[in-house]
């Protein structure tokens, strides 16, 4: 902005008008959000304050029911923990991939980008079904393990938390890799050269220069992956199964099978608040680290 200042100065008379027009340009989207996001959200909050499933009187009963019940709190904790596991695994696998993508020469880079983007071009349902085929008793993993003689009976991979974390990590991978690539490609390559010229090894350069500078990308990727993993209803129910209860399934069960809209709404609001808290925390980490990277 500071660099643009002198150039923009001669245009000043028109500027006030431009600024006003800019805001008006956001009006359609703003209106869209108001009608299709904020209004339903307000309705959701309202419904959550009904005390009984028939929605006849108001009260805090639904929130009390959730927050005072160890079982419900365990479901919330399990869901957030699932998000942490998936995010960690995605970061672990995604960062090397992003580095490779950034450093790769032109043609290979295009190919890698296509590979990263490919999952986004197929539906989540299709990707998830592929994982059923991979993880099943007769699946690729078990067939390979049996064929190599590493195990006598097929391992149970489907309908386990490990299998679910793995599948979610693959399904959400582009959400991690794309922000990482953006952040990494913004780093001036001269910085790495300078670091090397000053005697730092590859690891030291990575840890002291590349990693701090791409932290905003890491935070953005983690935010997206976390949010997508904990709300991934389809993958959670198909790979996790019907007895592994996470918040989206809990909510669906109450709303759809039991017609208990107030409790379902309260679950949604509690979930929303919990996720917002996690996001705020991550953002804070991001902001602190950005301060550090600049210093």
């Amino acid at each position: 902005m500071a660099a643009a200042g002198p150039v923009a100065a001669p245009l000043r008379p028109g500027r006030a008008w431009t600024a006003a027009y800019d805001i008006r340009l956001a009006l359609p989207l703003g209106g869209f959000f108001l009608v299709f996001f904020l209004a339903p959200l307000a309705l959701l909050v309202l419904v959550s304050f009904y005390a009984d499933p028939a929605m006849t009187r108001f009260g805090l009963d639904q929130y009390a029911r959730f927050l005072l019940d160890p079982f419900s709190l365990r479901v919330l904790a399990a869901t957030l923990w699932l998000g942490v596991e998936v995010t960690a695994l995605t970061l672990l696998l995604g960062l090397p991939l992003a580095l490779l993508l950034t450093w790769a020469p032109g043609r290979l880079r295009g190919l890698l980008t296509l590979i990263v983007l490919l999952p986004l071009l197929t539906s989540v349902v299709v990707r998830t079904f592929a994982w059923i085929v991979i993880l099943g008793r007769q699946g690729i993993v078990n067939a390979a393990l049996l064929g190599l003689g590493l195990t006598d009976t097929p391992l149970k991979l489907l309908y386990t938390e490990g299998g679910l974390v793995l599948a979610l990590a693959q399904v959400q991978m582009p959400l991690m890799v794309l922000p990482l690539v953006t952040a990494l490609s913004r780093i001036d390559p001269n910085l790495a050269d300078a670091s090397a010229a000053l005697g730092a090894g590859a690891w030291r350069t990575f840890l002291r220069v590349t990693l701090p500078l791409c932290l905003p990308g890491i935070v953005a990727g983690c935010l997206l992956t976390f949010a997508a993993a904990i709300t991934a209803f389809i993958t959670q129910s198909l790979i996790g199964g019907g007895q592994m209860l996470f918040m989206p399934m809990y909510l669906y069960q109450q709303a759809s099978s039991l017609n208990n809209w107030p409790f379902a709404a309260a679950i949604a609001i509690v979930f929303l608040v919990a996720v917002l808290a996690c996001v705020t925390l991550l953002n804070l980490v991001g902001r602190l680290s950005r301060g550090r990277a600049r210093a």
Partner: protein
Amino acid sequence: MTLHRRSLLAGALTLGAAQAFPGLSRAQARKLVFATFTGSWEEAHRAVLVPPFRKSSGGDVILDPMLSVDQIAKVQAARANPPIDVMLHDPGPALTAIAQDLVEPYPVAQSAHYGDLIADAQEPMGPAPFFQIVGLTYNPEKVKTPPTSWADLWKPEFKGRVGITNLNSTLGTGFLVEIARMHGGSETDVEPGFKALEALKPNLAAVAANPGALAALYQQEQVDIGPGNFNAIQILKARGVPVEFAAPKEGIIAFKTTIHIVKNTPVKELAFKLIEAALSPEVQAKLMQSPYLIVPTNRKVAIEGEVAKVLAKDADELNRKSVFQDWAAINRGRPAWIERFNREIRV
């Protein structure tokens, strides 16, 4: 009239909206809207039910397949001007729709076919045009002796081979009630059912989130035996999956799938004609043929083919072999059962 930028924009937006949501303009033309179920049900209804209805009524119909709960939510949201004219329901949601005053009583006196239905299909608030049948499904390549009783699921040889669904579905709930009955319980006392589920745990390979997911597990050979829907199995069989249906000797669970005229529909006459077509022996006989194999409820339909081979030779036998559960009682207990299932059934 001068053309203002704003009115032009509004016009363009309206046109765009009409393009994006064809339902808007469709609602104004008001053909009959029939909310059938998704998948093979829609296919069957489109192929077999719609043509004779068009012929007999001269009207047109739109099939808008959706889950029962969605049907109820949509009608509830617009009671005065419902977006659906004919609803199709499993027994649990049907009672909810009736309790919420969303459906009209069926004009029984004017109906040509109502009296021909099996007694259990005669529901004055909405008759049953077909039954959904739940029994045992198994993989014949892995399970050499066909199962004959629900009790077979507890056999030690099926350790880690049994698949069930949770109680979100009609299938899972019906199964729980049935095994409760087997052990002396009932629709109001499912305690023995939960005890039996507890004892089934070593045999459980999977608790699927819904019947569709359960069916997919047979394909992956993740499970070899479990409770299953007769019609869902036919779809898999048709695609070459090794899976068979067996009627347990305790009786097959029959879910009355009922069809209802929505209250305040502007096309009540058409709705009645569609339901009449669905109850008629001609349509039901065709729906019973392969590949649909939908179980008829009209006594005038001579049962034949796969349905006769696996389920019953005639309406009387079907009536005798079927167990009809009390869904009014089930609906009352279900919230607590789901809660308990959530807590106790962890595999």
